[in-house]
């Protein structure tokens, strides 16, 4: 009956309740929309970074973090891979890489380059790398050759079929040098990599660097992003007593996370301002609902209703108003985001070109992450709790006689 009383009370002044809940609905939609837009672009950037750079989880030699050298590579073979797949069912793909810095040269000039020795089939299964080819193919029919980032190829003025000289240092100080025929040019979506990267077949790279059967990092990708932590924990347990360490992507890309946090500061501030405005409106409604019913409160206390039960009824009223607003807001924003998730806004003109230059599709991606919806519920609940303090204090300190006379 307390529920019934609270529910009917909020509809005593239908218009006021509708205005208040509409304000909450508006705040939820605006807040979710802002977050979704920001997080959508972050997710796109992150997805590119993870797929073309670090992966979701990396296994490395524990010394590699402080000294990223080929000396700190570790052996990897089919048994290792098989063992991981068998023990961890949440692993979707395993991508081995050997990575180092070398000098890349043509007949006239030299540039610094990042060398990735890759298993192209595994790499493609993870990040569709072959689809980024602008020219040529990923290695020749004998699985040999080199694929250059478009930027590096332009700087060295090299094309498919030309020869590239790589010069550097292999494992344990061995000199490493070789001539490779360029089999393809790729457009890497990460600009820095696009200007520096040279892909070699894994075995070719291992041979060049005197690191047969060794890799510097093993990318482990869970079936879903949300399993990153659980797979990381399981792998850490597995490699507890070895020289290998397991790092999830937030440890691999801390600067990117900081950048995202910084970028989210503005929408968060706007959300706080928006909720403050809505909070005052909500407070106004509860204030009016309380003040115009002081006499009724006095009567209820006179006839034997305990103060805490009366406070419970008013608490339920506050909760109902906030829940109606939040649930409606979440449903409407879900529908809105769902639409824009399927039909993203397409960028045009300079903005589109700038985005395409960075290797992204010219769209405004919207995030569909579930937490951005339910966190709004939490915020409004907190506001409701703060707003409820007023009637609570009023009821606990109410002079029955004065209230009944009011």
């Amino acid at each position, binding site marked *: *009956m307390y529920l019934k*009383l609270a529910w009917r009370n909020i509809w005593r002044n239908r218009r006021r309740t509708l205005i208040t809940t509409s304000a909450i609905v508006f705040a939820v939609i605006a807040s979710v929309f802002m977050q979704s837009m920001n997080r959508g672009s972050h997710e796109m950037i992150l997805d590119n970074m993870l797929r073309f750079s670090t992966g979701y989880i990396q296994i490395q030699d524990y010394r590699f973090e402080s000294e990223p050298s080929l000396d700190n590579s570790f052996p990897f073979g089919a048994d290792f891979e098989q063992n991981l797949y068998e023990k961890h069912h949440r692993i979707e793909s395993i991508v081995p890489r050997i990575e180092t810095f070398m000098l890349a040269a043509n007949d006239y000039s030299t540039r610094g380059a990042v060398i990735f020795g890759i298993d192209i089939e595994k790499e493609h299964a993870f990040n569709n790398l072959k689809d980024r080819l602008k020219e040529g193919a990923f290695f020749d029919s004998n699985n040999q050759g080199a694929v250059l980032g478009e930027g590096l190829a332009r700087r060295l003025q090299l094309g498919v079929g030309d020869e590239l000289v790589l010069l550097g240092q292999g494992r344990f100080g061995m000199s490493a040098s070789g001539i490779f025929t360029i089999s393809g040019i790729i457009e890497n979506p990460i600009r820095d990599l696009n200007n520096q990267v040279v892909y070699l077949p894994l075995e070719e790279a291992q041979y060049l660097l005197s690191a047969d059967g060794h890799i510097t990092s093993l990318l482990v990708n869970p079936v879903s992003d949300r399993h990153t932590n659980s797979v990381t924990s399981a792998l850490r347990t597995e490699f507890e007593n070895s020289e290998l360490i397991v790092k999830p992507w937030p440890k691999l890309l801390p600067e990117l996370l900081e950048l995202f946090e910084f970028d989210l500061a503005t929408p968060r501030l706007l959300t706080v301002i928006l909720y403050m405005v809505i909070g005052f409106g909500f407070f106004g409604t509860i204030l009016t609902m309380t003040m115009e019913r002081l*006499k009724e409160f006095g009567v209820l206390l006179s*006839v*034997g209703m305990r*103060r805490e039960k009366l406070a419970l009824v008013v608490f339920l009223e506050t909760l109902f108003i906030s829940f109606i607003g939040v649930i409606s807001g979440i449903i409407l924003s879900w529908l809105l985001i769902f639409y824009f998730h399927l039909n993203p806004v397409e960028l045009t003109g300079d903005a589109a070109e700038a985005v395409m230059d960075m290797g992204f599709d010219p769209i405004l991606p919207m995030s569909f992450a579930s937490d951005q919806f339910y966190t709004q519920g939490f915020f409004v609940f907190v506001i409701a709790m703060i707003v409820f303090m007023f009637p609570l204090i009023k009821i606990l300190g109410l002079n*029955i006689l004065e209230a*009944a006379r009011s």
Partner: protein
Amino acid sequence: MIIVETKNLSKVYNPDTVPVHALRDVNITIEKGEFTSIVGPSGSGKTTLLNMLGGLDKPTSGEVMVNGEKITGMKDSRLIDFRLKNIGFVFQHYNLIPVFTARENVSFIMLLQNRDKNEMMKRTDALLEQVGLGDRKDARPKEMSGGQQQRVAVARALASEPKFILADEPTANLDSNSAMNLLDIMERMNREEGVTFIFSTHDQRVIDRARRVIKMVDGAIAEDTLISVEAANQ
């Protein structure tokens, strides 16, 4: 059997500025089954006395005993429970819960007492029948006349099976017919079920029905008259 007793009850408002003596050493006893009117001009202290008897106001000195228990100085939460169990209230402005139907208004008091749901519903229906509103159980206050609302208020006051009912000017806002009808109901409850009623009133119609009239002047009891049943019925 004494239901209510006051001992040297006094109430002074604004004691430090301009003292107003609302009650001066009031000593009364109300027996079970009484049908008592407290009368007097405005400002004579009758509403203040009623508030003291109901534990809604605190005396400056003296004490109030209800059913042998001293309610003066009782803690607020205990007093609320005490009122719920022992005292029924009928207000001048009815003061029903506007969003509840007649049935819900009456059963709400029993809900506060944590009574069994079936018993609650049976008693609610019986009380509404007794006050002649068997066919208006599902009406909300705004759908009822003043007289009907006040009858619901009487049913509500009776719902908790209190030791006595305090009615503050219960007929002040009613037309003659409604007032007579209400008085008939209260008188019948008093006669047939022994319910104790204490009214504060200006209304001669109520005073004429009372079997005891306590007249107050300037916060003190000026007259306390017992009227025989026969005289009251004439």
